[in-house]
């Protein structure tokens, strides 16, 4: 079952859920964050978070500690936590950057957060209780352009970043005050120094355009990224960082999310989510499009429509710019809800929750088709 919500917004640039999926925070392409609460079958606006001066670029919700972090083009980031009355109170994050903050993610343990910026730095931030604000340490080298995407490794100590210099890098994000030395065993590398470069990949052998999104697999051994050359790539740290690339025939993908260790969901300018399969050898292959929506106009009596159109508008062709999908514009954000559920938001203002069966079942249904 696919649920489509129209919240009456012009565009949704990013969205995120709370732990129980009963609340959602989203940005309507401006400097505000709208928080909605589930109310029976619909969503009720519960609060508007206003602290940023410019457009919000990234948002993330820490499920266990129930905190929201937002970053914006005004070079700032805020961590929002609820007071006893349930009102969201911002606390300042000291980013120390001179350019827009472009992306933000909580670490899996929720004790650190990483903010990428146009200043060619990643700020790895943690809470300084004596001052009641978040301080940051910078990862600078060898970033040479705006950081467009970041993701945390499940072990809380490794960070991946995609950038407009056509490269993807894997760094150590070890912070001495927060992390302990124990079980510091990642397949990407070990270091107790923040910013140690573990790996560096070209978006593609031919340049390949800006990197739009990076994502570690749930097990943490593989890294997936999508770039503006319509490609999807996977690097495997267990196989000597070998990269498998798939150049697709679609418009570029903006987001990629691992459903489990074998399936990746991508979405972007083509307005519909697609599933890619990673096989045992690490090869990528197209699995299925999730959106089988047909144009509404196509249904019904086309001959009758044709004559109607001829009659009313004196033309034989129906001028129709609708796209063959639920979303009618670029998908800007994907969030995984569970192993079989995920949500997408897009520039047409729609929020869609997709419910898919387990991948095995999905593959079976494909075979029947």
């Amino acid at each position: 079952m696919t649920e489509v919500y129209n919240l009456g917004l012009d565009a949704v640039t990013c969205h995120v859920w709370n732990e129980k999926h009963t609340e959602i925070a989203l940005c309507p392409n401006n400097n505000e964050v709208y928080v909605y609460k589930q109310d029976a079958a619909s969503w009720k606006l519960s609060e508007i978070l206003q602290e940023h001066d410019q457009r919000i670029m990234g948002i993330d919700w820490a499920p266990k500690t129930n905190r929201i972090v937002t970053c914006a083009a005004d070079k700032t980031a805020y961590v929002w936590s609820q007071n006893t009355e349930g009102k969201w109170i911002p606390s300042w994050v000291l980013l120390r950057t001179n350019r827009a903050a472009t992306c933000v993610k909580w670490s899996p343990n929720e004790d650190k957060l990483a903010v990428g910026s146009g200043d060619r730095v990643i700020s790895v931030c943690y809470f300084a209780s004596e001052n009641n604000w978040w301080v940051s340490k910078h990862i600078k080298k060898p970033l040479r352009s705006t950081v467009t995407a970041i993701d945390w490794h499940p072990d809380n100590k490794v960070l991946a970043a995609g950038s407009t210099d056509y490269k993807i890098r894997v760094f150590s994000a070890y912070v001495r005050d927060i992390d302990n030395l124990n079980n510091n065993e990642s397949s990407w590398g070990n270091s107790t120094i923040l910013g140690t470069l573990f790996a560096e990949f070209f978006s593609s052998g031919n340049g390949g355009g800006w990197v739009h999104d990076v994502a570690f697999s749930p097990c943490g051994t593989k890294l997936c990224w999508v770039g503006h050359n319509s490609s999807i790539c996977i690097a495997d740290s267990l196989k000597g960082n070998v990269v498998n690339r798939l150049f697709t025939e679609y418009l570029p993908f903006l987001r990629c999310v691992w459903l489990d260790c074998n399936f990746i969901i991508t979405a972007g300018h083509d307005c519909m989510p697609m599933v890619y399969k990673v096989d045992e050898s690490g090869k990528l292959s197209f699995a299925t499009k999730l959106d089988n929506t047909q144009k509404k106009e196509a249904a019904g009596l086309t001959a009758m429509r044709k004559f109607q159109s001829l009659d009313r508008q004196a033309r034989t062709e129906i001028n129709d710019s609708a796209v063959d999908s639920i979303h009618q514009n670029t998908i800007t954000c994907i969030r995984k809800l569970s192993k079989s559920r995920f949500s997408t938001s897009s520039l047409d203002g729609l929020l869609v929750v997709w419910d898919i069966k387990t991948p095995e079942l999905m593959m079976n249904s494909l075979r029947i088709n």
Partner: protein
Amino acid sequence: MSKSDDKDPSATAFRNINVDLYSDNNFKEDDPDGGTTGPTGSDENEILLLLSQGKQAEALISVLKSAPLDCKNHQVKENARNLIQKVLLSIKTNQMDDCIAQLDRHLMDVLMKYIYRGFEIPNEGSSGHLLVWHEKLYNVSGVGSIVRVFADSKRA
């Protein structure tokens, strides 16, 4: 120029200097192989021989495989472009599908790059022929191939 001129507070000559050029933050495009390795175009005589023998598809694959996309040398790129254009124009409309069927995904992307480059520098009747190429290639490789023409920094 006298010393007093140098100190002239109304002097504006320094404003013509683009200070951004001298900033260490200035982004330099990475070029690990310096454009020295990689193919530098194919041998023209060899390709012309293939064409005269009627081995159009072979000639096409050969030129695309040795396309100097990596190369920074303008002359080398220009020669390769001319040669590939020559091959493309020599293949007739009804042979195109056969030729495209023999290309892998990577070579299709290379071909698309040269089709667009051909649009930039047209000669007598070339654009019409390249449009047919474009249509046939697009049917196979999709819009992704066109996106890569614009997104890739290694161009034809």
